[in-house]
């Protein structure tokens, strides 16, 4: 006798990475159907952005993907700068690049630690948090905040990097790769981890493209697509780095992609430290009193590669100092939609592994 049972997973559950609810239909322990339900953290950042001046909307961007806030700021700032034809000094752009790469490492470390927790490993969580703490201290030194920075500004950055900050970054990039090796080996030497992730949560390339999946998930499904390489912004065309690609499309491949991305980020930061030019860190034409008078006309969308995938803000201006329409293209929103395909046919025990491999952050999914 066949009987399908409906089970609610979340919204309050330690391994949902926020407030995700999944309605799972089970036949025994096989998942027949899984429908994610979202919206529990909805604040309508798009409407809020339409209610103030252009520079004001930046703080709502911070609160989207709060573990990679600088990447979110970058997407908005680049779009607004295109909209207003603002020129940014070279030094500011190099600083931005260095900061978002450090933030990418911090974001991936959060993911790696919590992914370990979901798979029943407590040790890597502490190791990852220890390393992330060092990144946050760098941010504290340079931007003045640990989590939500409000650091990028139209025409540059709010403050220059301090010599002490540069020293801290140098120390971090020199010691981090060895420690990452150590963390990686905890995962890779575990037979249980391999058993629970290899061949689990598969997503074919066709489905990934059809559902608009981007970022590490797309690269783990076998497409070499990284906006930093394919459509470079800032100075990504002037630094050397590799784009890791795996073709299995399972949880284990996503783990490998993210680990390798952290290594490549370290490589990029090292090169930025060498190439960082002297000069202004913001465009004097757009000093703070000017910012409130800036007008945008037309529309623009500049895609960037955030730790989760393609992030961009579609800004429409009507010639006034307030944006007419702001639409946030958040990667986790599109990636999460594919979760029902990744789960179908697998066992209920694979659910936490698959959900955590997507790395959803709900500030960004629900906006």
């Amino acid at each position: 006798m066949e009987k399908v049972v409906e089970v609610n997973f979340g919204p309050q559950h330690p391994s949902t990475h926020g407030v995700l609810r999944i309605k799972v239909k089970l036949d025994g322990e096989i998942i027949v159907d899984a429908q994610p339900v979202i919206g529990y953290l909805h604040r309508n950042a798009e409407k809020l952005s339409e209610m103030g001046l252009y520079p004001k909307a930046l703080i709502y961007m911070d609160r989207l993907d709060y573990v990679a806030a600088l990447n979110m700021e970058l997407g908005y700032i680049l779009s607004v700068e295109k909209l207003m034809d603002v020129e940014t000094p070279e030094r500011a752009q190099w600083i931005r690049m260095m900061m978002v790469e450090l933030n990418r490492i911090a974001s991936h470390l959060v993911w790696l630690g919590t992914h370990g927790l979901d798979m029943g490993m407590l040790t890597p969580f502490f190791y990852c948090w220890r390393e992330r703490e060092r990144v946050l201290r760098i941010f504290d030194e340079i931007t003045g905040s640990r989590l939500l920075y409000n650091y990028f500004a139209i025409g540059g950055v709010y403050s220059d990097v301090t010599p002490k900050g540069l020293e801290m970054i140098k120390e971090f990039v020199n010691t981090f790769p060895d420690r990452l090796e150590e963390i990686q080996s905890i995962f890779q030497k575990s037979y249980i981890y391999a058993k629970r992730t290899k061949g689990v949560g598969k997503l074919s390339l066709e489905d990934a493209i059809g559902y608009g999946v981007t970022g590490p998930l797309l690269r783990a499904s076998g497409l070499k697509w990284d906006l930093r390489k394919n459509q470079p912004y800032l100075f990504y065309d002037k630094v050397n780095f590799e784009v890791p690609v795996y073709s299995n499309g399972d949880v284990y491949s996503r783990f490998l992609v993210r680990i390798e991305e952290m290594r490549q980020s370290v490589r990029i930061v090292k090169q930025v430290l060498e190439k960082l030019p002297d000069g202004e860190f913001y465009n004097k034409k757009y000093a703070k009193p000017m910012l409130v008078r800036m007008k945008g006309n037309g529309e623009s969308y500049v895609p960037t590669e955030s730790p989760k995938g393609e992030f961009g803000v579609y800004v429409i201006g009507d010639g006034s100092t307030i944006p007419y329409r702001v639409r946030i293209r958040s990667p986790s929103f599109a990636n999460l939609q594919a979760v029902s395909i990744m789960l179908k046919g697998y066992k209920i025990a694979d659910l936490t592994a698959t959900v955590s491999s997507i790395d959803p952050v709900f500030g960004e999914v629900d906006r």
Partner: protein
Amino acid sequence: MIPIESESKTKDGTPVIYVAKENLIPFMKEKKDEGFDMLLMVTGVDYVDHLEVVYHLLSTKDGKRLVVKTKTNEEVDSVTSIWPGANWHERETYDLVGVKFKNHPNLKRILLPEGWVGHPLRKNYPMDKKQYVNLGEDGEDKVSYDPKEGY
């Protein structure tokens, strides 16, 4: 060739094409065959006298981007049959902007609770009127203007 209404460019250099809403589905099918295999997002914009639905397309083969726009008053055909990923994006556009998508498999609110009054991204949405949500007896969300009725 499907006739287009007008052509322009965004500030970042992406081509923008306006299509009449009757021609939207054949036009999108044509574009998918041309290589635009990924639908990045669907957006609605309220221009007070009419609504615009905006589609951002991407070709993962050569990296080309395209913005397709169509003007409507309320209804437009759903593109979920062409790109399955349009599902949530269209639900969100329905939820926040109030564009109805014909032939959508599951056109329900996605971010706001079912029963919410109005669409927040419309320009005439009353910002001073708070709505309160509570869990009803049947397990569904109940929305009310009375603060005693919910949270």
